[in-house]
């Protein structure tokens, strides 16, 4: 006999340039609003589009050590972990390539002229980024874009902050904690089906969105150009939202020949298109 589901409090909002949704059982409306505030406040510090952000300060530090907040330090360490987990394919140091293809400002403001001939393979993140407690250094001439890593990382933390039974979805990068409304997990749409996630994350990486003309935002660090791997979209369920984001992006960049094997080693479920 299935128990009647517990009431779910939810809240939708726009932030990080995308749609965000928070859900919780036994969570107050105030907690959800505090969650939105946390996303907005941290988002302004880690965006590459805001002059006053910590990330812009790091990108412009010209090889000097600068102080970073605890959240920024953790996020940079997560970017380094993603680089290692993906064997270098998820590389936050692709910013120069993103600028070269015209992704210089939020896409709602439009792209600028692309200069793909200026795109170069991204440097190894491990070679150009140094992180110590409370400070970081990026080699001169390099730039970081934390993109999807930040959304997955934030979804992981936000879901845990909301309580023992909650779900945070930040632009498709999501994390579910606890048993969900019916003690069977949180029902999440995934690859045309519904999967019940419990203490798991999910993410989708795609070249179908954020694209203009022949270009799109998903850079292959091996070439410095938009990915042309043969895969259009990959969705993944993994232990956390950030892991799911890293595995999905890595699989998409690997292409159809290797994506299945990589997902089988790192994911709990996957959908390739």
């Amino acid at each position: 006999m299935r128990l009647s589901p517990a009431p779910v409090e939810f809240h939708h909002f726009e932030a990080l340039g995308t749609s965000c949704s928070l859900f919780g059982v036994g969570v107050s409306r105030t907690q959800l609003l505090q969650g939105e505030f946390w996303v907005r406040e941290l988002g302004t510090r880690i965006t590459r589009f805001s002059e006053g952000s910590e990330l812009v300060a790091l990108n412009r530090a010209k090889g000097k050590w600068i102080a970073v907040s605890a959240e920024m330090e953790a996020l940079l360490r997560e970017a380094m972990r993603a680089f290692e987990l993906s064997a270098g394919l998820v590389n936050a140091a692709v910013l120069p390539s993103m600028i070269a293809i015209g992704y210089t400002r939020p896409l709602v403001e439009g792209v600028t002229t692309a200069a793909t001939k200026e795109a170069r393979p991204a440097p190894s993140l491990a070679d150009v980024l140094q992180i110590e407690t409370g400070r970081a250094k990026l080699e001169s001439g390099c730039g970081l874009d934390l993109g999807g890593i930040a959304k997955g990382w934030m979804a992981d933390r936000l879901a845990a902050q909301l309580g023992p039974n909650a779900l945070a979805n930040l632009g498709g990068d999501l994390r579910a904690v606890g048993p969900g409304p019916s003690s069977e997990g949180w029902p999440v749409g995934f690859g045309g089906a519904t999967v019940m996630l419990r203490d798991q994350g999910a993410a989708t990486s795609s070249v179908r969105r954020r694209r203009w003309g022949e270009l799109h935002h998903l850079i292959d660090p091996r070439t410095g150009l938009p990915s042309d791997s043969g895969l259009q979209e990959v969705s993944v369920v993994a232990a956390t939202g950030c892991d799911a984001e890293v595995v999905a992006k890595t699989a998409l960049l690997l292409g159809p020949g290797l994506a299945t094997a990589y997902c089988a080693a790192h994911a709990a479920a996957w959908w390739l298109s």
Partner: protein
Amino acid sequence: MRAFLLKLGATVLTLGTTVASAAYVTAHLKNASAPLQPTVLASQQVGPVGGLTMTPGVRQGDVPPVTSTYAS
């Protein structure tokens, strides 16, 4: 004289072994075009593009989803 014969014998034996080994290897070249073993071949095949794969760690549900993962 005896030492010379020993040296000569060792030299002939060494050269003979070398020639015989080369002849054997040449006659038993590994076929580079031979098919890989099925398990190895399977790991290199293109995956089920367009398909959904779930391990036992994920359970499919029959209730409407509260949200979904998507590209943004």
